[in-house]
């Protein structure tokens, strides 16, 4: 008797609840790409194991009746796409982007200008004039090739070795210098270490030191831009070392499941500071991970500016048209030290570095290409070197003479407004500093 009552009660409350929830469940599932439906016909037919199809909601696949593990293919990995050889000759004319002369000259001049700026700022750090620097040696082609294939309105999220993207977009030399010197002209108000550039005007999101944090952020930005229905893509740069962070996993997976118009651009330069790639991963680099996330992926020769350009151009076109992420792994080599705080001869040979510097460099490859087309010669090279050097030195000297930002700026922008406690702390700081001016470098600041 009691059992019957409970059974009735159970049916009334819980079954109705169950049915209700089941409907809700089905409704939400219907909208997903891989919907799960049990084949009704199959259920009614006489059982034959050969006809069985897997019905698991988690994957769409056939059964297999022999035990076989999937083996990663690391010996013969994803091929490296290239357009021109080391002598700058186009290999397959069908792949020649056929850029006009002015555009190619612009590529070359931006790459070499970046190289000149790198040399001067690197030396200035050695002399203690700026506190820190990171060069872009050997990776100039990845920056300029990809930047040129984007629209200026596309939002860029970077790691820290992508100054060429900003330079290509027209960020003035003065601003690069202002940031490294942390002077009063720095848009970042002197708060971050050198090379942490950012520019709202150039749609280049300010760099931060924590690695890979920008990856899921870029996916989020791409999602928001997709909702705006504007023709916007997001590009997100990172090194192969950063790709080991959990945030890289998060970003790739979110971008794929949430269908974001984004290009993930990995600079695989062989090292993360001293760690070679065989201590970073055991798969076929980064590109091989893309398909695992359901992401279109390609590997390109990062020292071939045209290959980088072509891949980025196509990825951008499809990412915005189809709202799906693309992964480009640009193979390259970090010719310089990791940073000014690193001596890379402690963990790799000079011969190895020399090979890349002398025999397979993005700048020299493009120069050979231009020379072979009659677009460039020794004299133009000499004149451009001189001119670019002068421009960098002018910006450099001007930045060095400039005062540091006002001390008040230490307290602003923590929040959009100045909360009372920060207001008090700023007053305390000033009171103290004014009483002890002899102990503080006040005269260097623009107060």
């Amino acid at each position, binding site marked *: 008797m*009691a*059992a019957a009552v*409970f059974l009735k*009660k*159970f049916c009334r*409350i*819980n079954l109705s*609840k169950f049915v209700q*929830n089941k409907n*809700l*469940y089905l409704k*939400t599932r219907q*909208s997903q790409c891989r919907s799960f439906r049990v084949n009704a016909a199959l259920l009614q037919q006489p059982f034959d194991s050969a006809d069985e199809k897997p019905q698991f909601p988690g994957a769409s696949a056939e059964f297999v009746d022999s035990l076989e593990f999937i083996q990663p293919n690391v010996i013969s990995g994803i091929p490296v796409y290239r357009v021109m050889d080391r002598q700058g000759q186009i290999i397959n004319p069908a792949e020649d982007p056929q850029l006009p002369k002015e555009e190619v000259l612009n590529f070359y001049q931006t790459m070499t200008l970046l190289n000149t700026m790198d040399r001067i700022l690197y030396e200035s750090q050695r002399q203690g004039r700026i506190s820190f620097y990171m060069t872009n040696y050997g990776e100039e082609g990845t920056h300029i090739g990809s930047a040129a294939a984007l629209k200026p309105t596309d*939002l860029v*999220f970077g790691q820290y070795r992508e100054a060429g993207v900003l330079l290509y977009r027209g960020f003035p030399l003065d601003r690069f210098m202002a940031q490294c010197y942390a002077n009063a002209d*720095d*848009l*970042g*108000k002197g*708060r*971050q270490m050198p090379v*942490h550039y*950012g520019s709202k005007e150039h749609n280049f*999101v*300010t760099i*931060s030191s*924590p690695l890979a*944090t920008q*990856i*899921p*952020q*870029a*996916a*989020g*930005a*791409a*999602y*928001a*831009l997709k*909702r*705006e229905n504007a023709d916007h893509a997001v590009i997100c740069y990172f090194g192969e070392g950063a790709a080991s962070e*959990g*945030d890289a*996993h*998060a*970003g790739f*997976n*979110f971008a794929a*499941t*949430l269908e974001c118009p984004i290009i993930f651009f990995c600079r695989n330069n062989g090292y993360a500071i001293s760690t070679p790639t065989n201590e970073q991963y055991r798969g076929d680099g980064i590109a091989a991970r893309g398909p695992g996330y359901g992401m279109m992926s390609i590997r390109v020769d990062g020292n071939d500016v045209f290959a980088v350009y072509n891949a980025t151009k196509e990825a951008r076109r499809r990412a915005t048209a189809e709202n799906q992420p693309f992964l480009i792994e640009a193979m390259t080599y970090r010719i310089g030290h990791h940073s000014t705080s690193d001596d890379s001869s402690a963990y790799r040979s000079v011969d190895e570095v020399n090979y890349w510097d002398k025999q397979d460099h993005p700048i020299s490859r493009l120069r050979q290409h231009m020379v072979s087309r009659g677009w460039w010669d020794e004299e133009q090279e000499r004149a451009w070197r001189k001119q670019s050097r002068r421009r960098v030195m002018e910006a450099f000297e001007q930045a060095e003479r400039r005062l540091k930002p006002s001390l008040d700026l230490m307290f*602003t*922008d*923590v*929040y*959009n*407004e100045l*909360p*009372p*406690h*920060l207001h008090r702390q700023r007053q305390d700081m000033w009171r103290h500093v004014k009483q002890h001016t002899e102990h503080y470098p006040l005269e260097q600041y623009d107060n």
Partner: protein
Amino acid sequence: MAAAARFLLKSAAYSKASINNITNGVYSGLGLTLLRLSPKCDPHARTQKRHAAHFTFQPDPTPTEYGQTQKMNLFQAITSALDNTLAKDPTAVIFGEDVAFGGVFRCTVGLRDKYGQDRVFNTPLCEQGIVGFGIGIAVTGATAIAEIQFADYIYPAFDQIVNEAAKYRYRSGNLFDCGSLTIRAPWGCVGHGSLYHSQSPEAFFAHCPGVKIVIPRSPVQAKGLLLSCIEDKNPCIFFEPKILYRAAVEQVPVEPYYTPLSQAEVLQEGSDVTLVAWGTQVHVMREVANMAQEKLGVSCELIDLQTILPWDTDTVCKSVTKTGRLLVSHEAPVTGGFAAEISSTVQEECFLNLEAPIARVCGYDTPFPHIFEPFYIPDKWKCFEAVKKMINY
């Protein structure tokens, strides 16, 4: 990381009982049937009964200035705030684990149907991804409301919150910011949540300049504060006392309204002791104030801090200047808890007015235990004892 939570809650959300349903306990319909059918096991046996709630929710007076009101519990007040936001801000999106079907605590029920699947959507199960993704949305200027399923699982996103969200505006010289990001997370003890469904992590974030941390005590306040967080131009973390999701019911205005951040609220004026708390603990302290009045004739001033960072120093110090005594109480462990910050600030500001050492009644410095919860939490008896000591000092 949140796998444990999903395991616990998947079933809870689909059946009538749920983890936060403290009045009904955890018996699901099927479980109850089985228990009653078993001759040896009586669910009503005295020894098997769960411990009673450690607080009594007391509704605030119904606000009249914002128009029509409706009876809502805390989770419904949250839904109402989210509904208002999605209605007036076309850029606003809500995302997290399991928010699409309404959320494991029902806070997003109906919103996907009303506003579309591109605005209310599930993410992969990855907290660092959720917060990073939310920052990215906010960087474009759109409104991002991220949900972390339990405050206990916010730590995988600690880097994104502390190094990124909090520092975005500062480090870029205000070129970029993620001010339109709000992170909501269920918070606090729930009677049986044990280590990973009970935590109160506000003090970890209180040490982080650049974020705002807000904790409501009631449905009316939750809606007003959440709407303020969403509108605020800074990344905000909004902790929702999950024990109140269903337990706290009051009349809540249907239209949007805003309760200011960084302002504490004096809930009850008094002259002998100042009591400071936030979240559920405000209700505990209200009872303590009544007990002190009845049993000791002590007049307590009760303050709900509401915003942990940046907190309202002035209201608290003004009160202590008047009463001369301060008790701060929170569920989180005492060492490094936010009471320490309040206590040392008040000591600096009100040294000449203090007549007794400042008391902190908090959780012990242990992980949050399962079966020992009634002994762990800073309940009204522990707080009352502290008041008594302070008065007799």
